[in-house]
């Protein structure tokens, strides 16, 4: 038992959650290898917004959460492309709900990033300027309705495998956002599987359309897990910090093991002649992954990079009047209230 060391209480009368981060230069930020910080992580403790944290930890989180948020809102585009052409009212309602979810996921994540002392407006500027990235998977085109199925089944399936471990991320707000997101993603994956299952059991042309979509999305989905472990220089540090819980290759293997049996249930093949079950390890083994294409897409040479960015910037600019109108309305009502009080 200890006695109270200090009785003077200095309350922090600042914002409790977002944007309340004292500028890093003013904080006694612990060093990266600060024993107390590492002990907190080793103890599975959680870091919360106003805690002191190593500057590199904060920056890594801002970059990762921002990229994740950008991916959610850019991810609305490939599917938004099909809302007007969904084959039935039911499919249209489902697709609209899914695209709305992606917008919501982006907002949860921007809010989580803001607890680290950045502003959403700045993050959007950086996305629009091309200095922050989004997932390359959204730079592929969605040319048929079956792509809605393949995205839900494979792309959202891979995203779930990637994201479930982040629900245990050492940074509290990011982990809590991921809990909400993962709950919602499971509907996304199922609706995709259902689309493919329906097409696969439909006419020969529908079956062929489903197969073609799976052929195009399989390899890019595997690449969503990032480069192989021996070519992923930052992974080790992120794992030390409890931001990342499993290696890229381990997550990719988990996805392959879950997905291959599902492809059998769909009656569709995966475009990998070397894909085989390894009795000894109990894992499905894929052929070698050609990452040269992924690196081209990351560099900006994917088929939709330019289109996605142009659309995002355009949407932001065309929405300016809505933001201005909301501001003007709020100001007018505030002035009226003030006048009434006076």
């Amino acid at each position, binding site marked *: *038992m*200890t*006695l*109270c*060391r*200090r*009785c*003077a*209480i*200095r*309350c*922090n*009368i*600042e*914002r*409790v*959650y*977002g*944007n*309340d981060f004292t500028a890093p230069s003013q904080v006694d930020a612990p060093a990266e290898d600060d024993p107390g910080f590492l002990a907190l992580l080793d103890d599975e403790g959680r870091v*919360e917004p*106003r*805690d*002191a944290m190593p500057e590199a930890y904060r920056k890594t989180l801002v970059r990762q959460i921002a990229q994740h948020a950008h991916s959610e809102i850019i991810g609305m585009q490939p599917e938004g492309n099909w809302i007007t052409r969904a084959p039935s009212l039911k499919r249209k309602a489902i697709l609209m*709900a899914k695209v*709305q*979810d992606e917008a*919501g996921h982006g*907002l*949860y994540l921007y*809010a*989580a990033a*803001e607890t680290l002392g950045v*502003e*959403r*407006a*700045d993050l959007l500027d950086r996305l629009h300027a091309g200095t922050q990235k989004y997932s390359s998977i959204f730079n592929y085109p969605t040319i048929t309705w079956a792509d809605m199925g393949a995205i839900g089944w494979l792309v959202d399936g891979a995203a779930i495998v990637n994201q479930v471990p982040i629900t245990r991320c050492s940074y509290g707000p990011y982990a*809590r*956002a991921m809990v909400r997101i993962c709950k*919602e993603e499971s509907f996304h994956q199922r609706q995709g599987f259902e689309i493919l299952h329906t097409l696969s059991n439909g006419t020969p042309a529908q079956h062929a359309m489903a197969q073609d979509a799976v052929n195009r999305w399989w390899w890019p989905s595997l690449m969503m897990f990032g480069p192989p472990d021996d070519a992923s220089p930052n992974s080790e540090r992120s794992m030390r910090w409890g931001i990342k819980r499993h290696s890229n290759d381990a997550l990719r293997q988990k996805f392959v093991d879950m997905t291959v049996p599902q492809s059998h249930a769909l009656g569709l093949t995966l475009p990998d002649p070397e894909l085989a079950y390894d009795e000894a390890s109990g894992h499905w083994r894929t052929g070698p992954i050609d990452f040269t294409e992924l690196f081209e897409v990351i560099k900006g040479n994917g088929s939709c990079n330019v289109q996605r960015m142009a659309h995002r910037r355009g949407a932001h600019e065309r929405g300016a009047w809505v*933001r201005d109108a*909301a*501001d003007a*309305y*709020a100001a007018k*009502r*505030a002035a009226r209230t003030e006048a009434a009080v006076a």
Partner: protein
Amino acid sequence: MSADPGTQRDWPLWEVFVRSRRGLSHGHVGSLHAPDAEMALRNARDIYTRRQEGVSIWVVPADAISASSPDEKDAFFDPAADKVYRHPTFYTVPDGVKHL
């Protein structure tokens, strides 16, 4: 975030609290930006209760919340640390005594 609203680049920040069902208290679920309280409520409904996660929502301007400082958490919460007699387990009860 600048203190001067004239240079603010985004709408004010609101903290969102949701009562998930009657009988439970409101719990913090996250934050959002909105120009005024009414829009904050509508946005909170669309962002945080799309799947009937709540029956009541509070939105509070983030800068209206005063918070204890994490740097002071030891000193701030220490006064409770040496008062184990506030817990029933502190007391010995003779064998055989029931309903105590």
